[in-house]
Protein backbone atom coordinates (compact mmCIF):
# COMPACT_ATOMS: atom_id res chain seq x y z
CA UNK A 1 0.00 0.00 0.00
CA UNK A 2 1.20 3.51 -0.80
CA UNK A 3 2.19 5.80 2.06
CA UNK A 4 -0.28 8.23 3.62
CA UNK A 5 1.12 11.24 1.79
CA UNK A 6 0.78 9.70 -1.67
CA UNK A 7 -2.65 8.38 -0.81
CA UNK A 8 -3.89 11.81 0.27
CA UNK A 9 -2.40 13.42 -2.82
CA UNK A 10 -4.10 10.90 -5.10
CA UNK A 11 -7.39 11.40 -3.30
CA UNK A 12 -7.14 15.18 -3.68
CA UNK A 13 -6.28 14.89 -7.38
CA UNK A 14 -9.24 12.58 -7.92
CA UNK A 15 -11.69 14.75 -6.03
CA UNK A 16 -10.50 17.83 -7.83
CA UNK A 17 -10.84 16.23 -11.27
CA UNK A 18 -14.26 14.92 -10.30
CA UNK A 19 -15.56 18.29 -9.17
CA UNK A 20 -14.14 19.96 -12.27
CA UNK A 21 -15.93 17.44 -14.48
CA UNK A 22 -19.11 17.79 -12.45
CA UNK A 23 -19.12 21.59 -12.89
CA UNK A 24 -18.58 21.20 -16.62
CA UNK A 25 -21.41 18.69 -17.00
CA UNK A 26 -23.73 20.87 -14.95
CA UNK A 27 -22.99 23.96 -17.04
CA UNK A 28 -23.19 22.14 -20.37
CA UNK A 29 -26.56 20.73 -19.43
CA UNK A 30 -27.83 24.05 -18.20
CA UNK A 31 -26.93 25.88 -21.41
CA UNK A 32 -27.58 23.16 -23.95
CA UNK A 33 -30.91 22.11 -22.52
CA UNK A 34 -32.02 25.71 -22.70
CA UNK A 35 -30.75 26.06 -26.28
CA UNK A 36 -31.51 22.68 -27.78
CA UNK A 37 -34.71 21.59 -26.05
CA UNK A 38 -36.92 24.68 -25.99
CA UNK A 39 -40.11 22.62 -25.88
CA UNK A 40 -39.55 19.16 -24.37
CA UNK A 41 -41.52 16.51 -26.25
CA UNK A 42 -42.17 12.89 -25.37
CA UNK A 43 -38.61 11.96 -26.31
CA UNK A 44 -35.40 13.66 -27.43
CA UNK A 45 -35.64 14.08 -31.20
CA UNK A 46 -32.65 13.38 -33.39
CA UNK A 47 -32.37 17.09 -34.14
CA UNK A 48 -32.23 17.81 -30.42
CA UNK A 49 -29.59 15.15 -29.92
CA UNK A 50 -27.46 16.55 -32.76
CA UNK A 51 -27.87 20.04 -31.34
CA UNK A 52 -26.77 18.72 -27.95
CA UNK A 53 -23.60 17.18 -29.41
CA UNK A 54 -22.72 20.41 -31.20
CA UNK A 55 -23.57 22.51 -28.18
CA UNK A 56 -21.39 20.37 -25.95
CA UNK A 57 -18.45 20.67 -28.31
CA UNK A 58 -19.01 24.39 -28.61
CA UNK A 59 -19.17 24.80 -24.86
CA UNK A 60 -15.92 22.93 -24.40
CA UNK A 61 -14.29 24.98 -27.15
CA UNK A 62 -15.46 28.09 -25.33
CA UNK A 63 -14.09 26.67 -22.07
CA UNK A 64 -10.70 26.15 -23.66
CA UNK A 65 -10.67 29.63 -25.18
CA UNK A 66 -11.67 31.21 -21.86
CA UNK A 67 -9.05 29.17 -20.07
CA UNK A 68 -6.29 30.23 -22.47
CA UNK A 69 -7.32 33.90 -22.50
CA UNK A 70 -7.80 34.05 -18.74
CA UNK A 71 -4.47 32.43 -17.95
CA UNK A 72 -2.66 34.72 -20.39
CA UNK A 73 -4.27 37.76 -18.76
CA UNK A 74 -3.66 36.48 -15.26
CA UNK A 75 0.01 35.99 -16.02
CA UNK A 76 0.30 39.43 -17.55
CA UNK A 77 -1.40 41.06 -14.57
CA UNK A 78 0.23 38.82 -11.98
CA UNK A 79 2.64 41.54 -10.93
CA UNK A 80 -0.04 44.21 -10.56
CA UNK A 81 -2.73 42.12 -8.94
CA UNK A 82 -0.64 39.75 -6.86
CA UNK A 83 -2.49 38.38 -3.88
CA UNK A 84 -5.82 39.33 -5.36
CA UNK A 85 -7.22 41.16 -2.34
CA UNK A 86 -8.40 44.65 -3.27
CA UNK A 87 -7.99 45.79 0.31
CA UNK A 88 -4.37 44.82 0.74
CA UNK A 89 -3.30 42.78 3.74
Amino acid at each position, binding site marked *: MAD*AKTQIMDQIRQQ*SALSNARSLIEKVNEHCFERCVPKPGSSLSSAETTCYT*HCMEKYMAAWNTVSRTYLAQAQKGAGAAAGGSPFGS
Partner: protein
Amino acid sequence: MDSSAISTELAEGLKNLSPRDKQELNTFITQETQKSQIQATIHSLTDLCFKKCITSKISGGQLDRNEQPCVQNCVDRYMDANMVVIRHLEQMRTHI
Protein backbone atom coordinates in the same frame (compact mmCIF):
# COMPACT_ATOMS: atom_id res chain seq x y z
CA MET B 1 -19.63 12.52 0.20
CA ASP B 2 -18.28 9.06 1.03
CA SER B 3 -15.25 9.02 -1.25
CA SER B 4 -13.86 12.13 0.42
CA ALA B 5 -13.80 10.51 3.84
CA ILE B 6 -10.42 9.63 5.31
CA SER B 7 -10.08 6.16 6.76
CA THR B 8 -8.82 5.81 10.33
CA GLU B 9 -5.86 3.94 8.97
CA LEU B 10 -4.95 6.84 6.70
CA ALA B 11 -5.49 9.37 9.49
CA GLU B 12 -3.09 7.35 11.63
CA GLY B 13 -0.56 7.37 8.79
CA LEU B 14 -0.91 11.15 8.46
CA LYS B 15 -0.03 11.65 12.12
CA ASN B 16 3.21 9.81 11.59
CA LEU B 17 4.37 11.81 8.57
CA SER B 18 7.87 13.22 8.66
CA PRO B 19 8.14 17.04 8.84
CA ARG B 20 9.42 17.02 5.28
CA ASP B 21 6.43 15.03 4.04
CA LYS B 22 4.09 17.32 5.95
CA GLN B 23 5.66 20.34 4.32
CA GLU B 24 5.39 18.72 0.91
CA LEU B 25 1.74 17.84 1.50
CA ASN B 26 1.03 21.39 2.62
CA THR B 27 2.53 22.86 -0.53
CA PHE B 28 0.62 20.35 -2.63
CA ILE B 29 -2.68 21.26 -1.00
CA THR B 30 -2.04 24.98 -1.42
CA GLN B 31 -1.32 24.45 -5.11
CA GLU B 32 -4.36 22.25 -5.65
CA THR B 33 -6.58 24.77 -3.86
CA GLN B 34 -5.28 27.52 -6.10
CA LYS B 35 -5.78 25.36 -9.17
CA SER B 36 -9.38 24.62 -8.28
CA GLN B 37 -10.05 28.30 -7.59
CA ILE B 38 -8.74 29.14 -11.05
CA GLN B 39 -10.88 26.38 -12.53
CA ALA B 40 -13.93 27.74 -10.74
CA THR B 41 -13.27 31.17 -12.22
CA ILE B 42 -12.91 29.67 -15.68
CA HIS B 43 -16.20 27.83 -15.23
CA SER B 44 -18.07 30.98 -14.26
CA LEU B 45 -16.43 33.02 -17.04
CA THR B 46 -17.33 30.37 -19.61
CA ASP B 47 -20.88 30.42 -18.30
CA LEU B 48 -21.03 34.20 -18.66
CA CYS B 49 -19.31 34.46 -22.04
CA PHE B 50 -21.16 31.54 -23.60
CA LYS B 51 -24.39 33.33 -22.72
CA LYS B 52 -23.14 36.57 -24.27
CA CYS B 53 -21.35 35.24 -27.36
CA ILE B 54 -23.13 32.11 -28.54
CA THR B 55 -26.42 33.67 -29.46
CA SER B 56 -27.15 32.37 -32.95
CA LYS B 57 -28.49 28.93 -33.80
CA ILE B 58 -26.08 26.15 -32.84
CA SER B 59 -25.21 24.43 -36.09
CA GLY B 60 -21.68 23.15 -35.54
CA GLY B 61 -19.36 21.96 -32.82
CA GLN B 62 -16.75 24.64 -33.28
CA LEU B 63 -16.74 28.30 -32.34
CA ASP B 64 -17.38 30.27 -35.52
CA ARG B 65 -15.39 33.33 -36.57
CA ASN B 66 -17.60 35.72 -34.62
CA GLU B 67 -17.86 33.62 -31.51
CA GLN B 68 -14.16 32.96 -31.05
CA PRO B 69 -13.07 36.62 -30.82
CA CYS B 70 -16.21 37.46 -28.84
CA VAL B 71 -15.26 34.93 -26.15
CA GLN B 72 -11.72 36.31 -26.03
CA ASN B 73 -12.97 39.89 -25.76
CA CYS B 74 -15.48 38.82 -23.14
CA VAL B 75 -12.71 37.46 -20.89
CA ASP B 76 -10.38 40.41 -21.53
CA ARG B 77 -13.05 43.02 -20.85
CA TYR B 78 -14.21 41.17 -17.75
CA MET B 79 -10.67 41.42 -16.41
CA ASP B 80 -10.53 45.12 -17.33
CA ALA B 81 -13.83 45.72 -15.56
CA ASN B 82 -12.53 43.83 -12.57
CA MET B 83 -9.51 46.13 -12.46
CA VAL B 84 -11.77 49.19 -12.65
CA VAL B 85 -13.62 47.98 -9.56
CA ILE B 86 -10.40 47.25 -7.69
CA ARG B 87 -8.88 50.62 -8.60
CA HIS B 88 -12.00 52.48 -7.64
CA LEU B 89 -12.21 50.72 -4.29
CA GLU B 90 -8.56 51.46 -3.74
CA GLN B 91 -9.23 55.13 -4.46
CA MET B 92 -12.21 55.21 -2.12
CA ARG B 93 -10.10 53.67 0.60
CA THR B 94 -7.40 56.34 0.36
CA HIS B 95 -9.96 59.14 0.40
CA ILE B 96 -11.59 58.17 3.66
